[in-house]
Structures are given as C-alpha cells and as structure tokens.
C-alpha cells in the first residue's frame, strides 16, 4: 500500500521540508535542469537523501498544467502565465481539451514526468508526483475568480451571470487538464501524487455562504477532486492533498472527512495539534512550519524555528497521530537569503 510509506515516515519521526527548489539552485545551471528529466530526477534524489526521506518529492511548479492547457488551445509562450479568459471557453475549446488527440507536453512538464520516471526506475526511492488541483487551476484561468464563486454561492447559475459560466467552463477545462497530467505521472511511475489546492480557502469560498448551506465547496472543490482521485485509486497510488490557504475548522474537517487523503498538508495559519481532532485518525498530517518567513532573520530567527519545530513535534507526539514535520509550502530559493533559509531548515530537522 503506497500510503503506508507516509505512515512509516510519520512513525519514524520524519522531518522533511518540500525544498527541492533550494537543492536545484545549488546546481550550476538550474534553468537547464528544469527541462532535463534525468538531471531533475537527480535533484529530487539529492533532496530526498539530504532530508533522509524514503520518498522523492517533486519541485512545486503550479504553472505547468496551465501552460499545458493553454498550449493545447494555441495560447503559448510568455503570455500563458498571465493569460485569463475574457469570455467563457467555447464548446469547441472544451471538446478539444476533453476529447482531443494526444498532444506532446511542453519540455518542462515532460521533464517533470521524466524526473519521476528516473526516481521510479533508477533509484529505490518512492516516487511522488505533483499537480495543481482543479479548483486552483480554474482560479488561474480567470481574472477575478472570487466574484463568480461568490455569486454561485448565492444560488446564481451560469444563465444568471456570464462570469459564472466562464468560471464553470474553466473548471471543466482545469479538471480535464489535471487528469491528463496525473495520467502522465502515473505512467511515469508515480506511486503518490500531491494535489496542490491552495485556492480552496476562505478567500475564494465564503465561510459565511458555506455556513448558510451553499454547495460551492462541494461542487467546485470536492467533486472534481474526488473524480480525479479515482485515477489514483485505479492505479493503486496514494493521494497527498496540500492546501496552504486560510481555512476554517469546518473546511479542514470537510477536506479531511470527504476527501480522506493519505496525507493532508496544511499551511502555517493552522494549528496542527488542534486540527488533528478534525480529520480522520488515519490521515497523516504534514506541515506546517512558517517557511515563507524563513528568509528573514528578524521575522523568524533560527532559534524560533527550532522552538516551533520542537513544540509541534512534541504536541503531535502527545496525540499519537501520524505526522510528518515539514514546511507550510514549497520552500523557494531566494538568492540573497538562501544561506539563512538553509540554516533554518537544518534547525527544523535537528530540533
């Protein structure tokens, strides 16, 4: 059972930040590596070895699926990252993405798959894939995703407001695109896939509307994710759900109970030892040191990192919950602060 790898990591007191980007930038030519699957695979391997992880985690790049989708729609190049639909995607666009002929992936995306293949075929590490979640991808396809979701939360539909139609069709495109990415990662040998759904949070989904009974969380987040989860289930792969957004207790409970991932990774705004009571006992919790502030010695001195890591480990141990101490999100390389970030990750692991 792939999920047992994470439980074993938890039982062994695993302390593993998602910090592939830092290791990548220790190489002389990081940009070239991003399009070279084998070399990228070696970076994942080096990251796993550095933190004593039996699993090789990938580098978080949440642009890959958006670029793939837009490339297939003929919108490419630098424009892709900032592109937003100005009108609802057409039926023809939906059909092209949903049912279109197999298309080659862009080089960086292909390298991501090839790095997983390298881990699966050349090393003895447990290969982990990663994708942006469908809801989060949809939020990147429209300029203002909050308004249509909020209007839908008031019971309006696509016929009432064009922005809702635009969002819902974007979500449909997103789901098909994520499915394609997951299939490629499973084909490459991934035995678990991290779904990053940072937009599934209280900024995009009004807790006021959810409390009043709105179904937007279910319709826009849970159902698309559950449909995609089937791909993992069919392949016998484990599901690792990452959501570092601002969440309410209810949201954490619903994510844990309804999606029931093997691992649930939450952001630093959550108190994991309190959240442990909200999610099923067999879900491994991952996180959630505030690594986004590690660049600053004033905001986050190294002593504070050690203190936070020690406290979190102690509290989770007292609960006897499966837990892996980690970062709140991907730890990015910041040129002027790389040394201090590394020092804090060392403190986190050693505390």
């Amino acid at each position, binding site marked *: 059972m792939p999920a047992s790898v994470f439980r074993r990591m938890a039982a062994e007191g695993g302390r593993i930040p998602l910090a592939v980007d830092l290791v990548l930038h220790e190489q002389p030519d990081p940009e070239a590596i991003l399009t070279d699957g084998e070399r990228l695979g070696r970076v994942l391997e080096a990251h796993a070895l550095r933190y004593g992880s039996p699993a090789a985690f990938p580098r978080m790049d949440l642009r890959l699926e958006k670029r793939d989708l837009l490339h297939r729609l003929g919108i490419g190049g630098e424009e892709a990252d*900032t592109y937003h639909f100005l009108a609802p995607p057409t039926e023809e666009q939906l059909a092209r993405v949903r049912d279109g002929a197999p298309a080659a992936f862009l080089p960086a995306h292909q390298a991501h798959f090839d790095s997983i293949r390298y881990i699966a075929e050349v090393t003895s590490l447990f290969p982990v894939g990663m994708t942006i979640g469908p809801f989060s991808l949809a939020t990147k396809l429209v300029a203002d995703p*909050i308004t249509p979701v909020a209007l839908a939360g008031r019971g309006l539909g696509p016929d009432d407001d064009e922005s809702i139609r635009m969002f819902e069709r974007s979500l449909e495109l997103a789901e098909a695109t994520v499915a394609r990415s997951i299939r490629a990662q499973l084909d490459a040998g991934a035995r678990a896939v991290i779904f990053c759904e940072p937009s599934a949070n209280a900024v995009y*989904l009004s807790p006021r509307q959810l409390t009043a009974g709105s179904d937007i969380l279910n319709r826009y987040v849970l159902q698309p994710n559950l449909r995609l989860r089937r791909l993992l289930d069919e392949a016998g792969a484990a599901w690792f759900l990452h959501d570092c957004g601002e969440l309410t207790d209810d949201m954490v409970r619903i994510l844990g109970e309804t999606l029931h991932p093997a691992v649930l990774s939450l952001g630093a705004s959550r108190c994991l030892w309190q959240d442990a009571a909200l999610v099923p006992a067999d879900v491994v919790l991952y996180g959630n040191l505030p690594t*986004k502030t590690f*660049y600053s010695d*004033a*905001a986050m001195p190294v002593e504070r990192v050690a203190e936070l890591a020690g406290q979190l480990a102690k509290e989770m141990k007292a609960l006897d919950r499966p837990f892996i101490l980690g970062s709140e999100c991907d730890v990015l390389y910041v040129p002027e602060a790389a040394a201090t970030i590394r020092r804090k990750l060392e403190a986190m692991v050693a505390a």
Partner: protein
Amino acid sequence: MADLQKLYEAVLNGDNKTAVAVTKEALAENADPIELIQKYMIPAMAEVGKRFECEEYFVPELLLSARAMKGALELLRPLLAEKGAEPTGRVVIGTVKGDLHDIGKNLVASLLEGGGFEVTDLGADVPPEKFVEAVQLRNANVVCLSALLTVTMPAMRTTIEALKNAGLRDRVKVLVGGAPVTPQFAKEIGADGYGENASVAVNLARDMVKASSHAC
C-alpha cells in the same frame, strides 16, 4: 421617489443590480451624487469593513460589496467630474516583477475603487520602470506593491529605489502587502506602510492621502 436606504443596503449586501437600479432612479430624480456617495455608499462600505474585521464578512462579501459600490460609482463619475469633485486619491497598483499572483492585488484595487480612489492597475509581473511611468502619467499619490512569493519580494525594494531615482519618492506613499511580507520587511525596504489585508490597505491609503493633504 427612490428609496436611498436601499442603496445603502445594496452596497452592504453586495447586490450590484439593486445598487445600480436605485442609483439610476435617484439620478433621474436629480439626486445630488455627492450626497449619494457620502450619506449612503461610503457608510455602507465602512460597515462592510467593520463586518470584515470582526469576521462576519469574508473576502467574497467584501468583493461583492465593492462591485456594487463600483457599479453605482460608474454612474456617478461623469456627474462628479462635471462638479469638479476630486477622487479620494490616485493609486497605482501592481504585483511586482517576477510575480504572477494577482488575486490579492485585484482585491485591494477593487476596494480602493469602491472607496472612491482613482486606480491604475498595472497587473502582475510589473517592472519598476512601469510603476515609475504610471506614477508620472497619473500623478499618483499612492503606490501599492504586491508580492506573494519570498523570491519576488526583493523586487519591492527595487521598485521603491526606482521611484527614488526618478525623484518621485517624496510625492508618493508606498504601501506593500502579500503573504510573505511583514511590517519589518516593509520598514527595511523603506515602504510607508504594510497592509496585512485588503481592508487595512484601503484604510491606510485613505489615512495617508488625508495626512499628506493636511501636510500641504
């Protein structure tokens, strides 16, 4: 006769259609646009801000209210211009170079517009020279810089330096915000303020514009 309390409620409840309809009706009856703004719309947005601060409202409610306010303001703007009414302030806003995240920035821009500011939104991944150009062109008195990534935060410093080098720093207030940004970082890079959320950012911008106009 237009029931102007409905305008207050429409903005408070984020009901764009009603806000626009009541405003149209009021204007057809020769209502004073400044009175509509000052007696009904601004108090409604102030109440929205209060409800946000006490977590009764969340970002989606803020945004819907700002949208209703903006919808009504668009009808009033030509009349305000005729009367020579000045905006609350002139803001240039953008996500700094290298950073593609724009949701937080969009939210601040919407609330600023709802607060009566004239907003020039430069979008995401904006190089320092574009901020400089826009400040000059729009005669802005506030610049809002957003970043979501630790790796792009240094571009905030670079942008502030570019404003200095262009001789503009003394005439604009610089506000920064975004998930990894801290008050300490804002101070270090020489920003005038740090908005921990969109509502705080708008209040800060308003206070800064007020303070600088008194200073003159």
